[in-house]
Each structure stands twice: as structure tokens, then as C-alpha cells.
């Protein structure tokens, strides 16, 4: 088997594991995802930040053990202003549509028509961006910082930035558990129950 084909089997396998875990976490449900933004269900935050901490700590460990060269891993380029504005636009789209791109795919794969609509909408939005690209190109490339990382731009020594992320996540988890316990006995009138979505 050629190296390229092998790589594509790996792509399929890693993608399948990704989709499987998202679905098991309940993130193929728009009601559950939207719950994060109405502070009714903080699963999105818990899953996402546990994943970030796991990969961050795991990568540091594998790098320290000499098993993985972290310098060989593709780091996203930072373009400060377009990524700030893109994040704001994305966040609006996320709560209007009820899914992000990956979870929309999982919703679609779970038979949900709203997942299909989000994915079709996403393709339409990408088409509009591409067609407008000549007019957007200047803005798109504003404030380039290259593959910048937090330890490079913040006045924090050594692994402090990574440790700060772990500490903030831990504080966030404790707060999320406290909040959900506090809410348990309150009425959730008006919102359908997350484990029993109304799907006629």
C-alpha cells in the first residue's frame, strides 16, 4: 500500500473515532449543544476542555519522552483580527443553527434533518465567502502573527501557559458541576429534555 493511501486510511479511522466520540458524548444533538448557551447543560464545555487538557498534557508527555517531536506538528497560523471577527461570526452562526461543523455532521449522520440543514447552510456560507474573497482578501490577511503560541506572546516562563490552561479548566469544571447541581431541582419549563428529543 502506498504511503498516501495508508495516510488516507488513517484519515478515515481518525475521523470515524472523532465522530463516534462526539456522538457518544451527546454532541450530535442540537438541543444538548444549545444547552451550553442557555446554561442548562454544560457538556460542550466539559468535553471540549477535557479534550484540550488531555491532548495538551499528553503531547507534552510524549514530547518529553522523545516519542513525538512537537515541532513536526502543524501549528495554525494566527491572523489576529480576522480570527477575532471570524470567531464572533462563527459564534452567532453556532447558536442560530444549533450545531458547529463537526457536530452538524454527526447530527446529520444520526438522521437529524436540522443537521442536514446546518451542513447545507455551511456549504452555502463557504460559497459566499469564496465568491466575495477578492473583496475580503485584504481583511483576511490583516495582523499576521505566524504560528504564534501563548508562551511566545505572553510574559509567562516555560510551561506556565499550559499549566494555566489546566488550572483554568479545573476551576471551570468545578464551577460547572456546582452550577448544574444548583439547577437540578429547578424547573426546565419550555425546553425539551435533552435525553428525549422530540423527533416525530
Amino acid at each position, binding site marked *: 500500500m502506498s504511503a498516501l493511501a495508508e495516510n488516507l486510511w488513517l484519515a478515515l479511522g481518525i475521523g470515524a473515532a472523532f465522530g463516534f*466520540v462526539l456522538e457518544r458524548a451527546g454532541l450530535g444533538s442540537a438541543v444538548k449543544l444549545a444547552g451550553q448557551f442557555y446554561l442548562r447543560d454544560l457538556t460542550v464545555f466539559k468535553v*471540549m476542555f477535557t479534550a484540550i487538557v488531555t491532548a495538551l498534557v499528553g503531547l507534552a508527555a510524549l514530547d518529553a519522552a522523545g516519542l513525538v517531536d512537537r515541532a513536526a506538528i502543524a501549528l495554525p497560523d494566527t491572523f489576529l483580527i480576522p*480570527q*477575532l471577527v471570524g470567531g*464572533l461570526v462563527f459564534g452567532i452562526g453556532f447558536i442560530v443553527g444549533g450545531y458547529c461543523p463537526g457536530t*452538524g*455532521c454527526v447530527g446529520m449522520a444520526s438522521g437529524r434533518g436540522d443537521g442536514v440543514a446546518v451542513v447545507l447552510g*455551511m456549504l452555502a456560507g463557504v460559497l459566499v465567502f*469564496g465568491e466575495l474573497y477578492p473583496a475580503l482578501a485584504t481583511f483576511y490577511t490583516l495582523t499576521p502573527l505566524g504560528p504564534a503560541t501563548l508562551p511566545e506572546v505572553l510574559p509567562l516562563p516555560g510551561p506556565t501557559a499550559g499549566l494555566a490552561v489546566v488550572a483554568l479548566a479545573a476551576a471551570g469544571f468545578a464551577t460547572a458541576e456546582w452550577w448544574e447541581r444548583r439547577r437540578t431541582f429547578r424547573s426546565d419549563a419550555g425546553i425539551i429534555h435533552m435525553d428525549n428529543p*422530540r423527533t416525530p
Partner: protein
Amino acid sequence: MTREPQRYWNPYAAGVALGLVLLSAFALVGRGIGVSGAAAAVVATGVDAVAPAHARGNAYFGAYLGDGSRSPLGDWIVVEVAGVLLGGLVSAGLAGRFRPGVERGPRAGVRTRLAYAFAGGAIMGFGTRLARGCTSGLALTGGALLSVGAWVFMLALFTAGYAMAPLVRRQWT
């Protein structure tokens, strides 16, 4: 078809599993996991099929199409997203959660919810291209790598999501 769906995984256990999937992508392929890049490859291919000269004349789609010797549909990320669909389908099927339908609030109509979903998807799709990634390819992947742009994107998306949420509540009620 009427059996009770299984419970979802504990969110922290699911988060560890998701982190290990990301870590294996880092270790085995030298990259993270993404989704929205596949949408760009699909759209570039579609535009190329309908209007090839127009697609190749557009700097954004042209970058995906390259010299035309190979289809962007063979890109790593497109195959990975095909895997996401497959994995989601298998998981939903095994858990008794594959249910054709439209998730919405008890008083919201199907058409209302689908209109919100399409509009939200379009806004989000535009946002992913401006930011060069989505919740997986930028926020999750870049977040774990401590990328500056990833953390800026993540803070911006949650801020905007919380600010917008009260205005689109009717689809959930």
C-alpha cells in the same frame, strides 16, 4: 426502533477519549482534526464542476484546486470528515439513537427550526473561512497547541454565542 436509547457517556470520559483521538492525530499524522476545510474543498470542487474558468480565476477556490492534477476531494481532511459521518452513524446506530427527525422545542415548527439551522450554518460557514478553521480544526486542535489565534477564536465564539442566544430562543421553546 422503539427501544430506549443508551445513556450518553460521562462528559469527562468523552473528553478524555476526544483528547486521545486528537493526540493520535498529532502523533501519527502530525496534524490535528478539522471539519470546515473539507467544506471548502467540496465547494471548490462544486464551483469547478459548474464553472471551471470562474473557479480557477478565483484565488480562494483556485488554492484548493491547485493545478487540476488531483481533486481536492482526495484531501486528507475530506476523507477524515467522511470518517466523522461514518463514526457518527455507527455510534448512533449502536446506541439506538438513529432517529430521523428534526430536533426542536415543543412549540417550534419544523420549518422554523430548519430555517434557523440553514441560516446558522451559512453564517457559521462564512465565519470558519474568515477564521481559517472551526471548533475542531482551530479551537480544539489549536487550543491544545496553545495557538494564539485559536484561543482568540474560542473566546470570541463563546462571547458571541452567549450574546446571541436570547434572540434565537424561540426554536427551542
